[in-house]
């Protein structure tokens, strides 16, 4: 490469690098300007404008500087610095070429030849790189664009609400201090200028207000006005225990109940969740032939706040028929505290120590209590342990079906067991076989007792009765259900007698007949009808106790019953209509009532906030109308349903009759 070409190429690249640096500086200036505007020092448009002008100046300055600085001589000197071993030949050759210095033609040719030989391996990209400045410029440009985009995106967002005290504002700050209940062990929390406060149930809330007015108070829908106590330095405070989620309006003014400024505050009361406890092992009902077994019970308990105690309680049921006895007790539990909110426990339920006898049962369950002193014990699911020879033929510790399944399948199960017994007829021990047959007879008697109970049970709620009853498709008034039930009971009695006598063959016939009758009785054609003119129950104790002279027909008030909710909504609608008519600021109490239409819905909080924030009469009117439109929808939902059906028309009716008359032959 020739000396002049190398120098010219390097000079161009160095000038380009200088301009790129200027551009990068311009972008930095632009980003800084937009950022300052975003911090409240102006608008984004102003930031972009100022940044753009500054950047343009920087670019022009860089262009001018690049032109002035990078002459062929300075470029050659820069290359000499970056490429050692040139021994000033490049600078000399360049100066000779550009006429900065003069020499003989032979000397000029010799210097040029040697310089060309030295730079033969040099590349302009290596001695005058442009990639670095280009990358730097790209990164800075992207960053600048991101800053501008961010400033544009957020330009319409509302500013953070009023943390800065404003001398012109009456209600300068609100400080909410939340003191959780002691049992939670949480620290006291403070929130400045909150829009919503979440407080655990039972906790105390202290609101402290800085105001330049003479009075400050709190208004809550449905509650009397709650004054705040002034400390004399513009501070007012009130403290109470919120009972439920609600919305309050913090107001300040010079005279009672006339607010100069108000703020809406949503108070969410978070109820204490009950602890959860479960018996994880064995987690099912058990049955044993003897009372010598011991059952290991595992308990798992947890609570969102903290646990206080875990128990394992049992009830022993002994006896039979009308002579049942119940004894309650507790079993010691060994606790493993994983942490304050999650415990595991183990206990051993020794049947021998409970002195269980034949046919006795134990029902046990785990109880847990959290740290809330006002909360009660919470129980797990209860499980049963049955003891007795009735279940001896099964392996010890088998799971007894749950109650629903047991009664639902019992007659079918009796048949299955009878069939098995019939198949074991060749058992070498006739005494044992007879004993098993008598045990089956006992089960059959239990099933029969259940059916008798069902057929003789009193149905108190006719709605429930109707839901369970079914109508005949043909002969709807034929009551077949009761007859089938009686037939099933008789067949079961016969089966029991056969089983007691060891006649399993005839017992099976009777059992199957009973099953068929049961199925008929329970199918959809069963029909019980007990219609009363109104939802009433007969009280036998009042029979013949009335005063006949006072007997009269029931009368009903023809006026519409007072529905407190709808009355309240209509009153709210009336007050909002006043605001919409006059365009005057909404009273603080009205704002609180709007927010309290449904305290759990953010919609009403927004409506109340919009009403409170409306500055002009037109804004107030539109806010009131929007709230009324929403209120009308709520009132409509809570009113009697209506249907868009055609309106009656007498003319239509008479015309229809004429058509019918004409069409008759």
């Amino acid at each position: 490469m020739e000396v002049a070409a190398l120098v010219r190429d390097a000079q161009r690249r160095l000038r380009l690098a200088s301009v790129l640096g200027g551009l990068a500086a311009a972008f930095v200036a632009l980003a800084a300007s937009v950022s300052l505007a975003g911090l409240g020092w102006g608008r984004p448009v102003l930031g972009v404008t100022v940044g753009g002008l500054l950047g343009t100046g920087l670019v022009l300055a860089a262009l001018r500087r690049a032109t002035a600085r990078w002459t062929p001589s300075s470029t050659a000197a820069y290359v000499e610095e970056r490429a050692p071993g040139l021994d000033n030949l490049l600078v000399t050759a360049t100066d000779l070429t550009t006429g900065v210095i003069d020499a003989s033609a032979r000397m000029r040719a010799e210097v040029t030849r040697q310089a060309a030989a030295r730079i033969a391996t040099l590349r302009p990209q290596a001695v005058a790189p442009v990639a670095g400045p280009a990358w730097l410029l790209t990164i800075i440009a992207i960053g600048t664009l991101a800053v501008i985009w961010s400033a544009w995106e957020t330009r319409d967002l509302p500013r953070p609400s009023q943390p800065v005290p404003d001398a012109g504002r009456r209600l300068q700050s609100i400080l909410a201090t939340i003191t959780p209940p002691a049992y939670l062990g949480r620290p006291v929390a403070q929130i400045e200028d909150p829009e919503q406060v979440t407080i655990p149930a039972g906790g105390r809330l202290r609101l402290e207000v800085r105001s330049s007015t003479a009075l400050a108070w709190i208004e809550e829908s449905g509650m009397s006005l709650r004054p705040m106590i002034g400390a004399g330095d513009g501070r007012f405070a009130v403290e109470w225990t919120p009972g439920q989620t609600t919305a309050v309006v913090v107001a300040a003014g010079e005279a009672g109940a006339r607010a100069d400024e108000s703020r809406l505050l949503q108070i969410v009361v978070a109820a204490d969740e009950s602890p959860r406890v479960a018996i994880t092992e064995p987690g099912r009902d058990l049955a044993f032939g003897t009372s010598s077994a011991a059952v290991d019970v595992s308990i798992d308990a947890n609570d969102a706040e903290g646990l206080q105690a875990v128990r394992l309680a049992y009830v022993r049921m002994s006896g039979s028929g009308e002579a049942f006895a119940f004894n309650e007790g507790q079993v010691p539990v060994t606790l493993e505290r994983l942490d304050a909110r999650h415990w595991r426990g183990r206990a051993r339920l020794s049947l021998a120590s409970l002195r269980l006898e034949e046919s006795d049962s134990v029902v046990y369950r785990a109880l847990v209590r959290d740290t809330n002193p006002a909360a009660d014990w919470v129980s797990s699911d209860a499980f049963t342990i049955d003891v007795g020879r009735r279940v001896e033929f099964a392996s010890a510790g088998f799971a007894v079906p749950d109650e629903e399944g047991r009664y639902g399948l019992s007659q079918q199960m009796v048949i299955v067991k009878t069939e098995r017994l019939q198949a074991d007829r060749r058992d070498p021990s006739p005494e044992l076989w007879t004993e098993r047959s008598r045990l089956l007879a006992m089960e059959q008697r239990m099933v029969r007792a259940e059916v008798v109970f069902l057929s003789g049970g009193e149905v108190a709620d006719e709605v429930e009765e109707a839901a369970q009853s079914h109508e005949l498709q043909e002969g709807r008034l034929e009551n077949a259900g009761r007859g089938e039930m009686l037939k099933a009971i008789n067949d079961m009695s016969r089966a029991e007698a056969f089983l007691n006598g060891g006649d399993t063959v005839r017992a099976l016939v009777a059992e199957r007949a009973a099953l068929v009758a049961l199925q008929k009785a329970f199918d959809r054609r069963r029909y019980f009808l007990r219609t009363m003119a109104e939802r009433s129950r007969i009280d036998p104790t009042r029979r013949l106790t009335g005063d006949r002279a006072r007997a009269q027909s029931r009368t009903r008030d023809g006026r519409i019953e007072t529905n407190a909710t709808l009355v309240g909504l209509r009153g709210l609608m009336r007050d909002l209509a006043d605001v919409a008519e006059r365009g005057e600021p909404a009273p603080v109490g009205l704002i609180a009532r709007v927010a309290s239409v449904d305290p759990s819905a953010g919609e009403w909080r927004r409506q109340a906030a919009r009403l409170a924030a409306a500055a002009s009469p037109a804004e107030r009117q539109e806010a009131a109308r929007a709230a009324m439109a929403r209120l009308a929808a709520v009132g409509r939902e809570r009113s009697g349903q209506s249907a868009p059906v055609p309106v009656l028309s007498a003319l239509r009716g008479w015309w229809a009759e004429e058509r019918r008359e004409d069409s008759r032959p």
Partner: protein
Amino acid sequence: MRLAELLRLTALGIALMCWLDPPVIIAPAPPVIVNAAVVHSPRDGGPARSGETFTIAEAMNEVARQLSDQLAAAGTLRVHEVSAGDPVPCDALQPCVVITEGAAVLVPGDRKGPLSIVQVGDGLSPNVEAKALSIAPAHIAGQATARVSLAAAGLRGHTSRVRLFDGEAVVGEASHQWTSDGEVALDVPWWPVRAGARTLVARVVTDGIEERTGVDNDVADRVLVEGERWPIVTFERRPSWAATFVRRALESDARFDVSTLTELAPRVSVSTARPAPLGRLDAVRVVVVGAPDALSAEDVNGLDRFIRQRGGAVVLLPDRPITGPATRLVQQRWRERLEDQASAAGPLRASEWLVVSEVGPMDLVWGQSSDGAAIVATPVGAGMVLISGALDAWRHRTADGAHDGFWQATVARLAAGVGATVSLDLGDGDTTDGDGTARVLARTTRTISAWQVTATRTCADGATTVVRMWPADATGAFWGRVPVGSRVDCRLDARVAGVGEASMPLGQPLAVDWSPRWTQASMEAVATGSGGLFVSDGVVGPLVDQWLRARGTERRPEPRYPMRSWWWVLPFVASLSGEWWLRRRAGLR
């Protein structure tokens, strides 16, 4: 001198012809008589076109002038100034032109002649117009629905929001997104907040666009919001689950006062609130009948009078095919369908159905099962019979309360439509000229041979005026003119001897100055449908051409007397003067 002789002969000829006065028979084309209606509206003072100061009123007068000029001697243009909503002032067979910016006039349906329309100014686009508001009677404890007709132009993609106002209270709101120009009927659910005669205003606003005019954005209507419970009777000749569960649904609704009579056995019955006998159901709005197959002939007679004369509604809830005397109340043939699985007909579900074999043209199907119409209402006389063929719907009630909700809504709508024993309606024009019309409608199950109707207007200033009532178009219907004038806080009390009475406040003008309007499409339809043309104000020439062409080829000969014109004096005098001057020039005397 020949010229002088010629002039002398000319003068003599003129004199001779004038003396003879000969007639000339001609057959000219008949003149065109055109009536033009210039329709005035609240927009008259606005600019006819964007950016111009020429008002709509001026533009309409200019159009009338152009038409008159172009007709010239071929006819006559008679210009009439009318207001929007007035009848078109044209003869039935003559051509007529309506000059309007969009305000509508009333065109009689029997009009035969061509009606052309000249639209003045820019079309109203973008614009939405609230054309009509229709509100069914409502109850203070129930939901209500109003129907608003909207017409829009140039609003595609925009959403119009309709708010319903009762005074300043916003009682309902609905919105509609426009996909094309034209008209829509929008149902606006609303919540009655006050009982009595109310005036509701529907106000339409379109977001994100500035309409050409706002004068057509409001429309108003009156509605009666009832505050008393509607008397309902449920009647069962034998216990019926279907009626039991419908009765319970009605009992839980604050709009109804439900009285019940259930016969449990031949001499054992249970009743509440001493229900009216079936022969005396004047005050009752709806009778719900369970087990209609058990009705006696006497029961059916009472129900029949209730339906036909009282105009009441009867709901039949069978649980088996209807037989016996009750078949007189059934206007269709029903067949039974039993299904293994429950299916739906409207909001009701059932597995045992009665379905109509053939739905009549006057039947209203409210529930359609997979096998046919199952819930059918039939107008009978002045009333209505509703039959629910969902026999075991009570058994398939769902947790969402659809069964109860359906029956509450249905019976409420029937009760609202039946109305009170004596109802009072006021005509729309009750405040325009100081007088209003009132209509009294009395309905009773009893046969009345001599009606005694009295109506009295009472105002807050103590002035009381007896209103003369005249028999109207139906039995028990009367009308009268009620003087209102400028009085305020007046009411009209009507009393029908032996039937009942009603009362209504007077002098509540509709709150908005509303004028009917035409859309571009409706103007085209009206004009072309009558054989006329629809043109804009810049091109009225085709209108005149059409009128001239419509004169036809028929000519009627008529005599003309050309010599009776005074213009002949000029040639006569000129001829004599010329002849005298030529003679004097020639030296003659």
